[in-house]
Each structure stands twice: as structure tokens, then as C-alpha cells.
């Protein structure tokens, strides 16, 4: 080949490599900018007052998001109570009992559920719970988030159980242990870290969901004393404050967003700690 052609080919390769590198930079850039603005605009407003006080009425400055922060934890707890048992057992079926054909169908259905816009869950739970109960409630919000969690937990459990070597199961069966005991005590235990990781990631995901809560948990400017009352949540409060025309609310929206991000990061940090030093479990 002529030298000219070789130079040309090398130059093309270099240029395209550079373009790919720039693509990667452009993809990371929004993340950097979002974190920068969150800290610049939110950090000064996150103080003890913000974390421990109720919102003030319109027109008064100050107040905080204490009820929304607690509300988010309540909703995520409800979601875990609904999503984890169903998802875990469903995932166990896929990995330990299922047939290839049924598993294919379950996986497809789970992917469809994962791809369903969360606002759709919002109005479905509205029709299912809010209308019969004649009002928004923490139950409805928790249910919406829990239903969103189910397919996530099914897929992650199945994936993690598949990593458990078959010899473990065979060893248990050879000892005459009933299959369900071998699954619960040996297979689940082996995959435990990975499953907890998956559940934490699912929690982080639903903790940031706003759309399914708009019409189910609704919102609340005060503490809710009863799970059948509307309950405040952090994402919902951020949304309300972000689109409101008051400067003090905007300031608090940034502060709330920073707190929400920190909670999400805390979940992922939990994941990091759990997966440290293990290569079978963890988010790849």
C-alpha cells in the first residue's frame, strides 16, 4: 500500500477516536453541571432548620422539608414491604423452578413493566385505590412505588441466583435437604449480598420517583399521622416548589434536590460497601 494511503487511514482512525472521546466528555458534562449547580444553589439552604421544620405558608420565608423527608422514607418502606416479597419469590421461581419458555414470557412481561412510564402507574393506582378510598393516601403512594419495584426485584433476584453454582444445590439435595430449605438457606444466602444490592438500587430508583405520587400520595404541608392520609414526599415537594413563582420556594427546591441526591448517593454508597471485595454480586 502507498504511504499516503496509510497516513490517511491512520489520520481517520485518530480523528474518529478523538470524536468518541469528545462524545464521552459531552455525556459526562451534564452530570458535572447538575452536581455543580445543586451544590452552588442548594448547599447554603440545607441547614438544621431545613431538615427539622415544616414548610411555611406562602409568603413567609424559612421553613423546611422535614415532613417530606420523613414522608419519602415512609413511602419507600411501604414500597419495600410490597415490592420485595413479591419480587424475591417471583425471582426464585424463575431461577429455581421455571421452564425456559415460561421464563421467557415472565422476563418479557417484567421488561414491559420496567418500561411502563411511571405516570401510568400513578393513574392506575389512582383508579385502583384512591377512588375507592375517596382520597389520596400514603398507602396508595406506597403501593404505586411497590408495584414499580416488583419487576426490578424479580429481574435482579433471578440474575443473582443464576450466579450461584449448581454444585451448591446438588450438594444440598444430596444431603437429603428438601429443595425449599436448600433454596432458602443455601442458594439465597449465597446470593444475599447481590440481592440486597439490587433492592437498594431499586429503593434509590423509587425514592426519586415523582410522577406516580402526584395523584396517589398527593402532598401534605404538615405531618401525616395516619397512613390513610395524604403524605408529603421529597420529589413531590421539589416539583411543587420548582414550578412555583416564589423565590424562597425556588431556593428550597434546590435545597430539597440536594438532599434527595444525597439520599440516592447514600443508597449507592451502601451498595459499594456491600459489594466491596466480591465479584459475584453487585451492579456491573
Amino acid at each position: 500500500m502507498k504511504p499516503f494511503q496509510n497516513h490517511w487511514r491512520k489520520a481517520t482512525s485518530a480523528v474518529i477516536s478523538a470524536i468518541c472521546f469528545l462524545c464521552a466528555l459531552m455525556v459526562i458534562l451534564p452530570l458535572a453541571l447538575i452536581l455543580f449547580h445543586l451544590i452552588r444553589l442548594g448547599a447554603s439552604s440545607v441547614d438544621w432548620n431545613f431538615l427539622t421544620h415544616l414548610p411555611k405558608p406562602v409568603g413567609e420565608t424559612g421553613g423546611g422539608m422535614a415532613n417530606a423527608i420523613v414522608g419519602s422514607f415512609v413511602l419507600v418502606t411501604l414500597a419495600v414491604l410490597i415490592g420485595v416479597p413479591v419480587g424475591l419469590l417471583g425471582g426464585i421461581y424463575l431461577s429455581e423452578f421455571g421452564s425456559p419458555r415460561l421464563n421467557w414470557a415472565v422476563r418479557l412481561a417484567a421488561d414491559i413493566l420496567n418500561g411502563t412510564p411511571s405516570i401510568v402507574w400513578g393513574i392506575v393506582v389512582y383508579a385502583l385505590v384512591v377512588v375507592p378510598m375517596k382520597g389520596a393516601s400514603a398507602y396508595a403512594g406506597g403501593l404505586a412505588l411497590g408495584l414499580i419495584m416488583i419487576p426490578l426485584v424479580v429481574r435482579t433476584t433471578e440474575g443473582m441466583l443464576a450466579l450461584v453454582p449448581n454444585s451448591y444445590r446438588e450438594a444440598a439435595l444430596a444431603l437429603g435437604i428438601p429443595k425449599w430449605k436448600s433454596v432458602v438457606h443455601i442458594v439465597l444466602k449465597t446470593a444475599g449480598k447481590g440481592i440486597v444490592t439490587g433492592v437498594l438500587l431499586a429503593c434509590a430508583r423509587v425514592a426519586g420517583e415523582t410522577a406516580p405520587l402526584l395523584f396517589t400520595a398527593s402532598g401534605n404541608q404538615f405531618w401525616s399521622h395516619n397512613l390513610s392520609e395524604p403524605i408529603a414526599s421529597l420529589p413531590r415537594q421539589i416539583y411543587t416548589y420548582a414550578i412555583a413563582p416564589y423565590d424562597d420556594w425556588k431556593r428550597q427546591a434546590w435545597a430539597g434536590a440536594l438532599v434527595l441526591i444525597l439520599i440516592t448517593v447514600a443508597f449507592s454508597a451502601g451498595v459499594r460497601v456491600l459489594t466491596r471485595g466480591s465479584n459475584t454480586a453487585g451492579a456491573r
Partner: protein
Amino acid sequence: MIAATAQRKVVLAPPSKAGDAFFKFLTWGMAMMVFVLVALLGWELFQGSKISLQQFGWRFLIHDWDPGNGNFGALPFIFGTFVSSLLGLMIALPLSLGTAIYLTELAPRWLRRPALSLIEMLAAIPSVILGLWGIYVLVPWLRDHPYPLLQKALAWLPVFRGHIYGQSFLSAAVIIAIMIVPIITSMAREVFRAVPDSQREAAFALGATRWEVTWLAVLKGSRRGMFGAAMLGLGRALGETMAVTMVIGNSTDISASLFAPGSTLASAIANQFSEAVDDTYRSALFELGLVLLLVTIVTNILAHLLVGAVSAPQDAFNA
């Protein structure tokens, strides 16, 4: 000694089958919940939209949205959903493929994992925070700097004419692009990683440059997977709600200009559901949900069929 132990007969009762049968049934029931939920979604939305289905029929899909006169149609929202999602995909796809190529083929090994973690972090940012950042940082900047330049350069295209609003289809598309880049990137990365190294080595051995190796050994065989990754991104884009609601402007008009405000199916539900007091209005919003569900199901099934073979189950979380 040995003979003695061998002679002692130890009779253990065989393990009970009842526990196993119960356990299998229980887990089966929970696995079936996944189908129940799909059916529940469809059924509740169908029930909710009954009034609207009866009153407007198929006309609903090609009619304007006029709640003031009790006339409902999904056309502006279907239009808005597809314009913003496809535009978002057009922005996100090249960036994601470039990033995925960089991560699998070009980047030094020590950089790959941290870079991937950053992309996963972007995926983990809640939609409402992206929306907040969108309203107060991204949209004002887009409106003041890139949009006028774009209009000046491409004024001969009707889609870039007209008054420049910050909250617009184009802003929604940019936000959508930011949201779907991580999904497409991580799917495309899985696809590229599934290509055996021996193929790359063969291409290198023939004297190919780095780009030629990527093109011949990796990209050419991954078309199907890349298409699947794009579909997965599109599915996510179609249903994106909060961030889009916050930056699209929520107008129910259909405009040819990308600088004009609009609405999507999801943003219309989020924005109008609590105002809808009469039954027809609410029913029409449920029907928007039904349309949205059907569109995303079709996209997701396509994506599932296209990337099913290469995707690991954990990828449910890259969403």
C-alpha cells in the same frame, strides 16, 4: 470397625414433599404477579377511559384537545411525544454510540470503570431534579445562546422559524437526550462487549487501524444490538414525565416550530389530571395513558426481542 458401622442401619424419613410443593406454588404465584400486573395496567386504563372511548372512538387519535368545549383528542400529545422523543433519540444516539465505543475499544483500562460509574450516576439522577436544573439552568442558556445561532444558521428550515421560547419541543428533546444517553450507552456497551476479542485480534493482525478494527469487527456485526439499544432508549423517552413536563411549556397547540411550547402524552396527564373534574375530561386523560401504555409496550417488546440475547438481567437497573 468399618464393618460394624456399615451394618448399623440408619433409617431416616424421606424429606417431606409438602414443603416443596407449597414453596413451589408460592413462588409460582408471585412470578405470575408479573402477568397480573400487565393485565391490571391494561384493564384499569381501559375501564378508566371507557367514557372517552365510547364518545370519541377512533377519532380520539386524530382530534384536537379542547377541554373548554368538551372535545378531546390525543393528536397534539401524540405529535409532541414523537417529535420530542425522536429528536431526543437523534441527539442521544450518536453521543451514546461514540461513548460506548470509547469505553469498550479506546479508553485506557484504568479509566473504563470510573467513567462507567459516572454514566450510571447520571442515570440515577431523579427526573424531577433534572427538570429543576432544566428550568433554571439549561433552558435559559439554550434560549439565549444556541437557539438564536441555530435559527440564524438554519432559518430556511420551517422547523427553526418563529419566536424562540425557552420552554419548547427542542428543550424537551435535549432533556430527554440527557436522560436516555446512559441507557443507550450501557446497552450498546454490552452489545460491543459481546463481540469476541478474537475478531478484533484478527482484524488487527490484518493490519487494520484502531477505527477499522472497530468498524469491521465490532460495529458491522452489532447493528441489531445497536438498534435494540436505540429502541430501549426510545421506550424510556416516550414515557419520560417530570423533567419533560417542567421544560416543554405544556401548550396543547401543534406547531411546526421546534422553538414553540408543546405537550407530550405523559406531560399532559401529569399537568392536567388534578384539574380534570368532570368524568369525560378524566376519562380522556385515562385514554392518553392507554395510548402511552400501548406505544411503550410495542417499543419495549421490539427492544426486548432485539437485545434479549445480549442483555444481562441486571440491566433492568441501568434504567
